[in-house]
């Protein structure tokens, strides 16, 4: 298929989005990431039953935390797609990058990244 997607996206693989933790998302923001998104399986099609639903709740929690901190919650997103949807994967990557470019750089100063 050889679809291209923006080089701004750094992919971190996990066995299931259920493995993604609130701290993974917060630490990414803390270390200066302008945005983070979780690409999980389609709802109802998790091999581990509800890993993607758990990830969705964790993303919502982080969004609330960012709102409380005065940071745009849109910087963290949850997407659902199947592993067969390569075109959708590239589309989501473009969509997220455009969204984050619209928001501008993260207000979390990278020069203090520990």
């Amino acid at each position, binding site marked *: 298929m050889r679809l291209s997607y923006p080089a701004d996206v750094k992919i971190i693989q996990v066995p299931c989005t259920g493995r993604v933790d609130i701290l993974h998302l917060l630490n990414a923001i*803390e270390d200066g990431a302008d945005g983070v998104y979780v690409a999980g399986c389609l709802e109802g099609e998790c091999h581990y039953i509800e890993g993607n639903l758990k990830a969705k709740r964790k993303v919502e929690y982080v969004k609330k935390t960012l709102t*409380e*901190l005065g940071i745009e919650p849109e910087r963290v997103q949850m997407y659902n797609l199947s592993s067969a949807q390569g075109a959708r994967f590239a589309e989501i990557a473009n969509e997220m990058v455009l969204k984050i470019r619209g928001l501008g750089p993260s*207000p979390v*100063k990278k020069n*203090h990244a520990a």
Partner: protein
Amino acid sequence: MIVADRKSLQEILAMVEDNKKILIAGCKGCVTVCNAGGLKEVEILASSIKIARKKQDSHIDIDIEVLERQCDTEYVAGISEIVGNYDAVISLACGVGPQFLSEMYPDQTFYPGVNTTFFGGATQHGVWEERCAGCGTCAIHNFGGLCPIARCAKSLMNGPCGGSSQGICEVNKDTVCIWDSIVRKKMEAGKLADLIGVKGIKNWRTARHGGPRKSIREELVQGNI
């Protein structure tokens, strides 16, 4: 267990706004079980504070410790060698924790990171409800195992008030009238007669009304048994 809710980030950030190096101390007891002050919550709070401070371009160093319990001096003593290294300490234990810490380390500043709410249990994942008021004179056996002291808004001992409507308390539509539940339970068991008879005036001196309480177990004071 003792149930607590974490304070808002804004309130906690205001507490430590002048500090450059802090310790966040969690507790492996009740607040871990009610997801308010265990390791996960300590790490989330640390990351949240760091994000807020980086946003302000104001650096802060945060270390974390999770004590076995903050309500036992032997565990509180576990941070004796490091507690002086910080500008302040946020305790995510119940209200007992920051007090035990303050008593053992009078030169340090301890902030409570949670609001301690009640003695209760989880009725479903993420929902905790009050079950005990710690009145010091338990009598739930007189009420079908349901406590009217903790669960009736007026702590009535002799039946529901006029504010009970269709099993719901007038104070809050989400609050069950516990007297409605007590009466129904006794009726179903065919033991309604158990509730006949005026309960004597409750002695509230064993509750908070008698001032701060202390429990002394002489046999333990003398040593392990």
